[in-house]
Structures are given as C-alpha cells and as structure tokens.
C-alpha cells in the first residue's frame, strides 16, 4: 500500500434545516493515485472537495492531508496542493503567460520566461500564450486552469469536474494531460459525473449519491463486485434483431450509443450455452458477436437504479 496522502473520516456537512450535503463519508487516497469521486449533480462531490481544499468548513469529521489536520491549519498545506475549481474561468484580460506569471506571484514563487513557456507547453497552450484568455476555447481555458493549479508543483491536485461542458476532443485532451500529471507522481483527486472518465482515468473510484459513498474500489473491483452480468454484443443486429430475440423470450436491449448493436445480458454462466443455441436458431443478421464485461455505467445503474447523463439522473 502506498503512502496515504488524504484520509477522510466520518465527514459530514449539513445545511439547515435538514440538508445533508455530505453524510458521514470516509475514504483514503494513496500517493500517486488518481482518485475519482463519481456521482450525479447534487451528490455532494463539490462540497466534499471544497472541504478538502479548505474552502468550506465541515459540520463534523476529520480530514488529514499529508498527515496534517486541515481544520487546524491549512496555510502550511497551500504550497503542496493545487486546485482547479469547478467551472473555472480565467481572468479575461490576462494572456496565458501573464496568468501563469501572476499566479506564481500569488504563491511567492519567482518564475523565468523559460519556465512559463514550459508550463504552457506542458498543457499544450504554448502557441496560444499571447491570446487574451477570454478568446480561448472552453478546453483551452480548463488547460490554463490546470497550468495555474500546477504552478507550485503540487504533490496533490484537486480537479473539480474538469471536463464538464467540453467537447469530446477537449475531454480526451484533458484525460491525456491528467494521465501525464499522474505519471509525474502527482496524486490527483478528480470529481466527475462522467462514468467513462472515471473508468478510464481512476485507480480508485468512490460513487457518491445523496451525500453518501455507496460504493468504492478500483473500476475493475467495482464491476466485479456490483456488476450483474456478462454482456453479449450482437454488432449491427439492430431493432429487427432485437424484435426476434424478444419473440424468443430473451431479455435484450439496443445499445444507447448507436442503436445498432443489440446487448444481451447473461447473468449466470450456466445460461450462456442455452442463450447461444437460441441465438443460432434465430436467424439474426449481424456483423459480429462478442462478449464484454459490464462497465461502471452498468454498475451505477445497478446501484442507483437510474442512468446518469451529464450529471443528471434519468429515471
């Protein structure tokens, strides 16, 4: 087990009269990990991360970061922690290189022009260093935010929903950047409501719902523990294939992603053989057939009973 960087014990945050934003959660984060707190909007992720960032006071509980109780004195931790707040917007009239320079001054750090350029290169903004920040794209603004959060070379980086609202390319670029940050040894605390993001990036995931952690572990462990089935994918079978399966009494549904593939969950290994025989006799046109394990999305559905799209639970 790696060194513990964050240790949270029985943390709660209540708002009058009876809102339990965070309700007695506990978890630990090991050094060099990407830890993802996953959950829908309103689950309590941002409240939790802001308590850990020293921006909110908890109602009760204990938070230790690098072995120090953050409620007693956060100032000593500031230089070891980097933060990208939710919905980060840079100062409109600062150019990226100016923003980096300004931010280092707020940390009492002297920085050379070469180091500024290196910081911008690291996040892929070197070519855009002389553009006013208000003219940067959403993804570029987040990259600049990450660059700012890294100016003090933090050992622990908090990223609060860094990819929310970005297009697929922007998200992929940021994922690559976050992985690169991890590879350099920085521990990352990532909140997200994107299941695929948590699955791709995180070493450990805590699924949060209504202020509580309802499941935790590595993505593989979560799928193993909370997954209910193996998925047989009938690629390209479409709605006609689905119809034929349903006529044979097989529980199946179309893949939400493209509505071309038919997904057949097989909950017991012993069911697989009979299901394959039924399939063979069904005369379904398909491009390919293969199995895959369940994903975090399926796990979330199994645990919460609803799907999640853009942070919103779908009944």
């Amino acid at each position, binding site marked *: 087990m790696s060194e513990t960087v964050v240790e949270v014990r029985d943390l709660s945050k209540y708002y009058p009269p009876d809102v339990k934003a965070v309700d007695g959660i506990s978890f630990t984060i090991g050094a060099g990990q990407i830890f993802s707190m996953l959950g829908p909007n309103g689950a309590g992720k941002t409240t939790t991360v*802001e308590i850990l*960032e*020293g*921006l*909110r*006071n908890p109602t009760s509980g204990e938070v230790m970061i690098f072995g120090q109780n953050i409620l007693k004195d956060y*100032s000593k931790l*500031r*230089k070891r*922690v980097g*933060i990208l*707040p*939710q*919905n*980060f*917007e840079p*100062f409109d009239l600062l150019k990226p290189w100016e923003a980096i320079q300004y*931010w280092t001054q*707020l*940390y*009492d750090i002297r920085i050379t022009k070469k180091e500024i350029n290196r910081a911008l290169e690291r996040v892929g903004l070197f070519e855009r260093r002389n553009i006013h920040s208000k003219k940067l794209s959403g993804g570029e603004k987040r990259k600049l935010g990450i660059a*700012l959060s890294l100016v003090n070379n933090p050992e622990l980086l908090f990223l609060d929903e860094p990819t929310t609202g970005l297009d697929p390319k922007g998200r992929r670029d940021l994922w690559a950047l976050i992985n690169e940050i991890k590879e350099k040894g920085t521990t990352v605390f990532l909140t997200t409501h994107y299941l695929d993001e948590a699955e791709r990036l995180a070493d450990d995931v805590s699924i949060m719902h209504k202020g509580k952690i309802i499941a935790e572990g590595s993505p593989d462990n979560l799928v193993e523990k909370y997954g209910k089935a193996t998925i047989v994918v009938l690629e390209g079978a479409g709605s006609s294939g689905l119809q034929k399966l349903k006529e044979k009494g097989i529980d199946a549904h179309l893949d939400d992603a493209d509505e071309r593939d038919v997904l057949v969950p097989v909950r017991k290994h012993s069911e697989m053989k009979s299901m394959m025989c039924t399939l063979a006799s069904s005369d379904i046109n398909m491009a390919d057939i293969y199995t895959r394990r369940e994903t975090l999305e399926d796990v979330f559905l199994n645990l919460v009973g609803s799907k999640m799209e853009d942070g919103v639970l779908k009944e």
Partner: protein
Amino acid sequence: MFFALVFPVLIILVFGAIFMGGGTSKITLHAQNLDEGSQGDAFLNALNSTTLFDIVEIPSNESIEQYINNNSLTVAIFIPKNFTFDIGEHLLFNEPGTVDIIIYGDPSKSTYGTVIGAAEAVAEGMNFRLIGKIPIINTVPININPGDDGETQFNYIDFYLPGIVGFTVMTNSLFAMTSTCAEYRQRNYYKLLATTNIKKWEWLVSKFIFYTLLLWLALVLTYFVGRAVFDMQAQLTPIAFVIIAVGAFTFTAMGMLVGIVVKDPEGASAIANAIGFPMMFLSGTFFPLEMMPDYLQIVAGVMPLTYLNNGLRDTMVYFNDGNALINLAIVFIIGIVFFILASKFMSWKEK
C-alpha cells in the same frame, strides 16, 4: 434596469429636493457687527427679516479675514465700528460720501450674489427711511478669492475641478470595487485566490494601491486639461494627492463592503448606483451645499464625499491646508471603519 427605472426616480427626488426645497432653505451668513450704535443691528435685523439667511455672529475680537480663511467661508458681512456714528454725521452735516458695509465673498458662488442682492436691497430701504433721497449706506463687495490679487482670477471651473476629482475618486473606487467583488464571487475568483498564499488584507491593500495610482493619474490629467483649456487657476498641492489616496482607500473599502452583500455584477451596479448617485449630487460636487435645504445639508454631512470635496477645495482653491487636513481626517476615519468591516465580513470561503 437601474438607468431605465431607478435613476430617473433618484434624479427627480434629489434635484427636486435641492431646487424645490419649499422655501425652507437658508443661507448661513456670518456677520461681524462692530457697530457701537443701533444701525448695525437694524441692518442685520432687516437682513434677517428677508428669511433668506441664518445669521451667525462673528466674535468682535476676531479678524474677519482670518475668520473667513479659517472657516473656508464663501460669504461674510462686516459692519464697521462707527457705522451708526458715521450715518449720524452724514445726516447732520450732509457730508459727502457713503458709509460702507463690506461684503466679503467668493464671486463664483451663487450665495455671494444672493447676499449682495439682499444687502443692497436692505441698504436701499434704510437709505430711503433715513433721508429719502441721497444714499448714505453703501455695500462694498470684496472678493475673497485668495488668488484674486489682481493677477490671478478664479473661475467657476476652479471650484468645479475638486468636485470632478472627488466624483472620479468615488465612482472609480466605489462602483468598480463593488462590481469587482460581485464578479469575483460569481466567477469563483475568490475561491481561486483562497487557494493561494495571498492574504485577504493583502488583496484589499493591492486594490487600494491600484485605485490610488489610477486616481492620481486622473487628477494630474484633469488638472492639466483644465489649465490648458480653461486657464484654470486652482493648484495641485501635495495634500490633494494625500486626500485622493485616502479617498481611494475609503471608497474602495466602501465598495468591498457593498460587494459583500451583492451576488452578481448587475446587482452590484444597481446598488452602487443607488448609493453613488445621490452622494454625487448631495455632496457639493456640482452645487454648493448652501443651496440645499437644511435636511439635505444634514444628509450631506454624513457622506464621505462631502468631506473629500471640501478637503480638495480647501487645499486646491482656498489654500487652507488646516481645514483640508480636518476633512482628510474625517474621510480617513470613515475609511478605517469601512475597511475593518469589509475585512471582517468579506469571506472568500463558502459557508
């Protein structure tokens, strides 16, 4: 929304109160009556009966010029020692010439004209009552403009400049700071700052320094434009720079205090306007305070901009640094109170 709905209402209320004060507005007229007879009192009583003035007596042992200077008066009246005696001599011996009442004043002020007009009317009435034909009592206006030494002539613009500068100090510091605070909260900049090493008081001081430098530049620019275009004679003095720094401090702190309660830049703008515009008109920026009804003068007395404007006029126009420092101290004390409150109640953290 503010300029469409609230602003016109404020304007009609403020200007209505200033110009339609229901006839209750009186000019405070300082008078020194050294006359040992009854005619001096009769003259002042007649002036008093016009209901235009609140007459304040200047002690007889004071030098009136010194008193005017010490109190930054814009108008004062002086009745000489032998006023009654001289009138009697003229009546008895038909001596040529006149008996003079001296009206010290600042010609750029409307109150001076009002006092001269009223005093001339009273003098004329007394002349008529005394002998019915040859005027004996005469009013002699004396310009108290310090620069009016035959070489320097002050104009309205000289008295207007400190008001403009004071107004600029208020708008830049108060309006900008209020909306900055709201924007910082809305865009999570406070959270960003809270994650760095910078202290809250350091940020507050940095804003104060920024606005001070900006406003010093504004003062110098306004001054030189005024000189170049209007041949303005008011002077830039070191105390003017100090007053501007203190004004920037006070209104920056005030803006921060207002910024604590507003949630977004639109709301900030509305609240800053609602505070700033009445203050602008009621603090002697554009109109002499003497023009306003008594109750508005009381309101003006609690506004920091009043003391900022007065201090700037004292040092730049009247060259009365003693009074300027008193006004400066008042602005500074108000600023300290605002700063302490802003530091105490402003939070970069969430609840």
